[in-house]
């Protein structure tokens, strides 16, 4: 290669001015620095929750992690209470978001005309952009008194059913948009083959497109589950505060996230190095670990769809 390069006339260099090269190097370094800062953020998050969570666990008697309920100020940190609350709210949310979200996705991907899609998708985006505290207010002041109380007279003003429904409403647009992307990625030839065999639209949608897009659909549900677990304000507003351990969705209660908000607010406000304050970081660690795992699994499923076709 070096032999093939013709010699340049004396006095001409293709290296360019050294000032220009220095500028290039500085700019590149700046951008690399910004990109590396995102890793620093992750490191700080992990370091923060890990250090405080470990000092929490080493400071308290581990038997305090089970008890009659979540009463951090009395030194009772029954993790099961808030884990059960989280599971309850997440299951209710997914029972709502899965059918509505997937049906919306099938309609948008297989049935809607391009014009209809252009009109409907912004509506879903607007719904997705409503702050979660507003959905919480909606759950507390409309869903509980107008929907839940007439059906279940014994329901508390603050209850986890309303919180679950609110979180479900919040996750519908997420399920719909990720699942729709997956179904639209299914090649047209599969649909044409199905029609060629005489299948109808419904059969083609459910038996051909849906199974072909199943990786992306599973990913949509996993990502939505992770989002539901991490959702905070809907639960903090609509379900009150975590108290005694309960399995009844009509009782007030709390999730891991809402327990964190309660710890940081109002009568429960705790500061300094008390065990209650550090329990905040212990929950944070659990939450981070669970959502991290779900997101990784969801990511694997998303990429599997992309690779297939």
């Amino acid at each position, binding site marked *: 290669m070096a032999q093939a390069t013709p010699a340049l006339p004396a006095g001409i260099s293709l290296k*360019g001015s050294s000032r220009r090269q220095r*500028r290039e190097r500085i700019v*590149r370094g700046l*951008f*690399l620095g*910004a*990109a590396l*800062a*995102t*890793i620093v*953020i*992750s490191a*700080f998050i992990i370091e*923060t*929750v890990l250090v*405080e969570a470990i000092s929490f666990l080493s400071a308290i008697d581990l038997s305090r992690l089970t008890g009659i309920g979540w009463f951090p100020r009395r030194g009772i940190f029954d993790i099961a209470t808030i884990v059960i609350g989280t599971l309850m709210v997440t299951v209710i949310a997914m029972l709502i978001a899965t*059918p*509505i979200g997937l*049906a*919306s996705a*099938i*309609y948008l991907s297989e*049935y809607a005309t391009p014009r209809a899609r252009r009109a409907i998708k912004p*509506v*879903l985006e*607007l*719904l997705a952009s*409503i*702050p979660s*505290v*507003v959905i*919480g*207010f*909606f759950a507390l*002041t*409309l869903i509980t008194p107008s929907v839940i109380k007439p059906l279940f007279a014994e329901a508390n003003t603050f209850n986890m059913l309303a919180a679950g429904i609110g979180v479900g409403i919040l996750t519908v647009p997420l399920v719909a948009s990720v699942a729709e992307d997956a179904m639209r990625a299914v090649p047209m030839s599969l649909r044409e083959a199905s029609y060629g065999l005489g299948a*109808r*639209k*419904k059969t083609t949608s459910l038996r051909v497109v849906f199974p072909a897009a199943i990786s992306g659909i599973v990913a949509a549900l996993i*990502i939505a589950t992770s*989002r539901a*677990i*991490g959702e*905070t*304000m809907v639960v*903090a*507003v609509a379900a009150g505060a975590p108290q005694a351990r309960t399995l009844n969705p009509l009782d007030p209660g709390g999730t891991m*996230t809402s327990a*964190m*908000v309660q710890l*940081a*607010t109002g009568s429960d406000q705790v500061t300094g190095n008390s065990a209650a304050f550090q329990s*905040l970081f212990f929950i*944070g660690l659990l*939450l*981070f670990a669970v*959502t*991290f795992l*779900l997101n990784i699994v969801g*990511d694997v499923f998303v990429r599997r769809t992309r690779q297939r076709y």
Partner: protein
Amino acid sequence: MSTIASTSTVTAARVREGLVNSRRDTLGIVFQVILLLSLLASLVILLVLLADVLSKAFPVYADRGIDFLTSPLSSNPDKAGIVQGIVGTAILALVVAAVAFPFGLMTAIYLEEYAADTRLTRFIQVNIRNLAGVPSVVYGLLGLSVFVALFQSLGMGNGRNVLAGGATLAVLVLPIVVITSIEALRAVPIAIREAGYGVGASRWEVTRQLVLPAATPGVLTGTVLALSRALGETAPLILAGAVLGSFSGLSIDRLFTGSYTALPVIVYDWSRRPQEAFRADAAAAIVALLVITLFANAIAIYFRNRYEQTW
């Protein structure tokens, strides 16, 4: 039916009927209607939500009008206003934009224009995707133990100020800015860059003079969307020290170092109060919050549709 000839006649007739007569596909229509109803459910929920909030907020604005927007927080629901929330949210927006936009855009430019496909690059990409999925309340912990502690050690009171809150929100939405900016940069055709290199431009010159102008609408759309997400966030602010309940403040000299609150924090505080009158106030505060976030979103969606380029 017993002979081959008649069987083939029947078959032929059936095939002809299947091709010519279109029987109504009842099941298919029912299915389609169910799908459409599910989709419309979201629309109905959105409308009911807006109608509900507006009807609850209407008396507050009808009685007090502009007074509600300009009054400070109070423990008396008939006097309480949201001016501190509006100011807090506005400053938070400035801080978030000032931090998240440059950092996000620089990261996106590095990943899309500069970085080779190395292990480090891939690690950064995976890391950003994971950051996007971390629950917002966890960022509150980060804000509390990093930013609040930082501003405290800098001698800015107890560190629970609007700068700490803004930095927390900026970090929270940074992944969104990066991901949307990368998409915007990726949409610029490679031929544009090659044309630039062909006339001897350096990488930075190509990026700044050719790629960035073409990607600006997409980058701005993503930033505005991220901003509107940040302004609706409540939990990280509560953890990172936004004040619940009323406080006196808002003096200019302590704007950045004193106590602060934001609209969504006020909404949370008021909706859990026992007095019914605070519910109406909360609804009125929601209207102010929605006007800001929906307006930002509408702008972003408009920009995207208006400047969407197909190369």
